[in-house]
């Protein structure tokens, strides 16, 4: 007797895979869904439930549904993938960066510095605080103090 295709296992695996991959490929661009994977966790959960449903009927009605062996393998793989995703987001990402206890704190004076801009012109912090930028990045064209300067330290352009 030809047994039925156990679609729930396959669809569930695809949903888990999509739930994991859509984080780096898409949701990382949306701050609210990047800071906490609100979109990805429900997707991954749904996928695992589907696999569970498929597995349950494969074992309860082995004469009707296929999938006991490949379902177990695929289910274990997807469970491992989901665990890896959660580990990466909730543990891995939070134990990477140094604490930086010596960084300037609110109320302290920012240590002055001079660094070259992208056209190798020297830029001094105190100087730019007292002289706003023109929109094209020229330094020292404005007059009077700025409202403040935002300094963004970033990891480099990979």
């Amino acid at each position, binding site marked *: 007797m030809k047994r039925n295709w156990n679609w729930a296992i396959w669809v569930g695996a695809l949903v888990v895979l999509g739930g994991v991959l859509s984080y780096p490929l898409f949701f*990382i661009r949306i*701050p609210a869904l*990047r*800071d906490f994977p609100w979109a990805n966790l429900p997707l991954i959960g749904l996928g695992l439930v589907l696999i569970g449903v498929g597995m349950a009927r494969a074992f309860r009605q082995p004469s009707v549904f296929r999938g006991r062996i490949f379902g177990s393998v695929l289910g274990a793989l997807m469970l491992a993938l989901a665990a890896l995703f959660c580990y990466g*987001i909730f543990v*891995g*990402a*939070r134990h*990477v*960066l*140094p*604490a*930086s*206890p*010596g*960084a*300037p*704190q*609110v*109320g*302290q*004076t*920012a*240590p*002055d*510095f001079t*660094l*070259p*801009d*992208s*056209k*190798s012109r020297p*830029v001094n*912090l*105190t100087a730019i*605080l*007292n002289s706003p*930028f023109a*929109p*094209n*990045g020229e*330094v020292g064209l404005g007059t009077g*103090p*700025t*409202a*403040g*300067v*935002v*300094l*963004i*330290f*970033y*990891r*480099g*352009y*990979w």
Partner: protein
Amino acid sequence: MDSPTESETLRQSQGYTFPILSDANLDVIRRWDLVHPHGRRDGADISRPAEFLVDPSGKVRWVNLTDDFVVRARPQEALAAFDAINKSHTEQ
């Protein structure tokens, strides 16, 4: 860290109008205690992500040092810190 030339390429490709400074030797990054040891994929030291708002007197008014790799500051946070500076000016 990126050289001025690399930063200029980035600035032009993204259309950024703000200046991008280069700290190729990590002098300032080290002085500000922002080094992320071996942070780059090839094992080199780089800067950790960090954001500061400095007021015209040189005082730090807002700091964001994320402890989570994927969570970064939102523009609204910096703008709110600017508002706080302006408010304190009006009150004086």
